């Protein structure tokens, strides 16, 4: 298992370098002459040359890349024009909110999707299965922002069960940053009312966001369960007198969870980068909003920053899924 993990980790470092090489290429090489761009339209040749030296653009490309990596490592990710703050600080302020939202959302999708997938498979082609199918089709077909708006109308405005939007109430003091995840920080510092308030705020956007993931988790889990329940080892388990519950919930599900994990990971990655609509509807201060605002105002550095962070987390997710795969399946673990 250790070797397996190490191997995946090394692989991930290389993928990360690949990602950074791409962002580097986009920001340093792709503009026909970045120095001219930086110097501005009115600059003369001399000024452009000065910029070229100042930014190290006259150095060999690999040296520039190393300098670029160094900059990123020291937290110098450039400056945002539209927030006028350092990109790193912005990311630290916005991204954890998105992570929280997406984590919460995927947990809901897993907690509901996996059991529903199992139930749909066990009661294949019976009424329960059809009802669950309606849910999955809805999840795929409904636009997220529309679901969000409807949820707002009904649960926030009409029933007043949940707040309309935002991360916490304006008047509440957020907890001191430890992990930057607000709910976790609130818990760590014993501010339970803040935690409950944050929880209260996260429910609607998380539910609105989870539907597409929920739908695919149900679909994949159902299909995998159907296949697994047909396997010989299930027949054997029954012949040995194991209870139906144990056969379904342990013997079959653990096998079916392998492909389901893959889809969960994939969905999680997509959700990280696909929160902007929900964040807009619920006024959620996340990276989706931040990146879109940056894009609208042609603010280059924040876009690159957001790209790197999202890419990094996408890879992290895949890495984690690989590890979980290894934990679940001994064959994967040992075939290093």
């Amino acid at each position, binding site marked *: 298992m250790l070797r397996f993990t190490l191997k995946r980790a090394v692989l991930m470092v290389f993928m990360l370098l690949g990602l950074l090489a791409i962002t580097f290429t986009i920001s340093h090489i792709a503009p026909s002459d970045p120095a001219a761009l930086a110097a501005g339209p009115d600059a003369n040749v001399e000024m452009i040359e000065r910029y070229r030296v100042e930014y190290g653009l006259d150095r060999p490309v690999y040296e520039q890349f190393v300098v670029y990596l160094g900059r990123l490592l020291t937290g110098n990710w450039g400056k945002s024009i539209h927030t006028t703050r350092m990109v790193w600080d912005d990311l630290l302020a916005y991204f954890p909110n998105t992570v929280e939202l997406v984590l919460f959302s995927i947990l809901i999708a897993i907690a509901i999707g996996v059991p529903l997938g199992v139930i749909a498979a066990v009661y294949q082609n019976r009424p329960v299965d059809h009802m669950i199918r309606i849910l999955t089709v809805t999840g795929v077909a409904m636009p997220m922002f529309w679901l969000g708006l409807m949820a707002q109308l009904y649960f926030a405005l009409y029933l007043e069960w949940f707040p309309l939007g935002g991360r916490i109430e304006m008047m509440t003091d957020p907890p001191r940053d430890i992990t930057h995840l607000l709910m976790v920080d609130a818990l760590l510092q014993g501010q339970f009312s803040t935690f409950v308030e944050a929880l209260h705020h996260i429910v609607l956007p998380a539910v609105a966001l989870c539907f597409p993931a929920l739908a695919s988790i149900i679909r994949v889990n159902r299909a995998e369960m159907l296949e697994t329940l047909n396997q010989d*080892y299930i027949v054997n388990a*029954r*012949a*040995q*007198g194991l*209870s*139906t519950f144990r056969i379904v919930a342990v*013997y079959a599900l653990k*096998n079916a969870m392998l492909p389901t994990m893959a889809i969960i990971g994939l969905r999680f990655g997509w959700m990280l980068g696909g929160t902007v609509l929900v964040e807009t509807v619920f006024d959620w201060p996340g990276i989706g909003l931040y990146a879109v605002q940056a894009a609208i105002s042609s603010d280059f550095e924040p876009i690159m920053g957001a790209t790197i962070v999202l890419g990094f987390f996408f890879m992290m997710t895949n890495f984690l899924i690989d590890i979980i795969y290894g934990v679940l399946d*001994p064959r994967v673990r040992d075939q290093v």
Partner: protein
Amino acid sequence: MNGPPMNSVDPLLSVRDFRLEFDTFDGVYQAIDGVSFDVAPGESIGIVGETGCGKSVTARSIMGLLPSPPARVRGGQILFDGEDMLTVGEERLRQIRGNDIAMIFQDPMTYLNPVFTIGTQLVDVILAQQRAKPRAERMTRRDARDHAVEMLRKVNLPNPERQLENYPYQLSGGMRQRVLIAMALSGRPKLLIADEPTTALDVTIQAQILDLIDELRADFGLSVVMITHDLGVVASVCDRVVVMYAGQIVEDASVARLFDHPAHPYTRGLLASVPHPGRPATSLSGIPGSLPNLLDPPSGCRFHGRCALAGDDCLQPPPNTVLAERHKVACWRAMEGAGAVD
């Protein structure tokens, strides 16, 4: 007053006029049609017949393992120790499985769960058996583990303690079949149903597994139903043979009788297709044709379409003839052509 004869014992398993069909897209498939046979305590019977004749379906029906739908029981009884397995219900069946009747299967590669260790699976099965017992007699997890090791030792698996930590893919086919046998016998069942337990194994391993089953049979006082299409297997481990054809039993005889005096033309064909020292099997000695379509079974004897001796009377259901004390056959031409096999 006429009591039962002194030497006859109540059978452990008694399948009586069992009928089962499958609902398929093409219609109703009459897989099992009026199958009857008994298994006495401690007896070992073989069920033979070509592929698709209904051996596995019969075996799985005994344990209530066929999914319904598509399977549908049309009649008959499967009495085990006096209880009808067709009517006892799932809860009781689950207690009987593993504790009273156990089963092993054809392909040991696929019958163990790939993502759990041997130990987990074995202990789980042993713990499941405990639920049928009164609380005071149940094994703890510790006991179950010790019992698992003991069972692995009984099936001659080297390093039983270490095997508990292994996953199925780390074991060879023969070893896996030993694990499955250990699992099946861990609840000390009275009846072991073995559905082609050696077909997927190398010849040398086959012999070892058969020896093991034979040994354990004596050890545990087991009755065995051995399903196979290999008459060699039957000869080596069975007391009696039931020959199946197209969902029916065509002949039922002690092994010695069957090999020396096969009465049904189908049985004779089967025997003739066994390679023999000095008389290698040729395609000529096999049985021409193939199984009839059981969506629309032929009337009368189901074998008549392939039978060299068939005549008009064969379109009527054949009589069940008792030829000797332990020899029954369902055929109009039971004795004709006997001796075709030397």
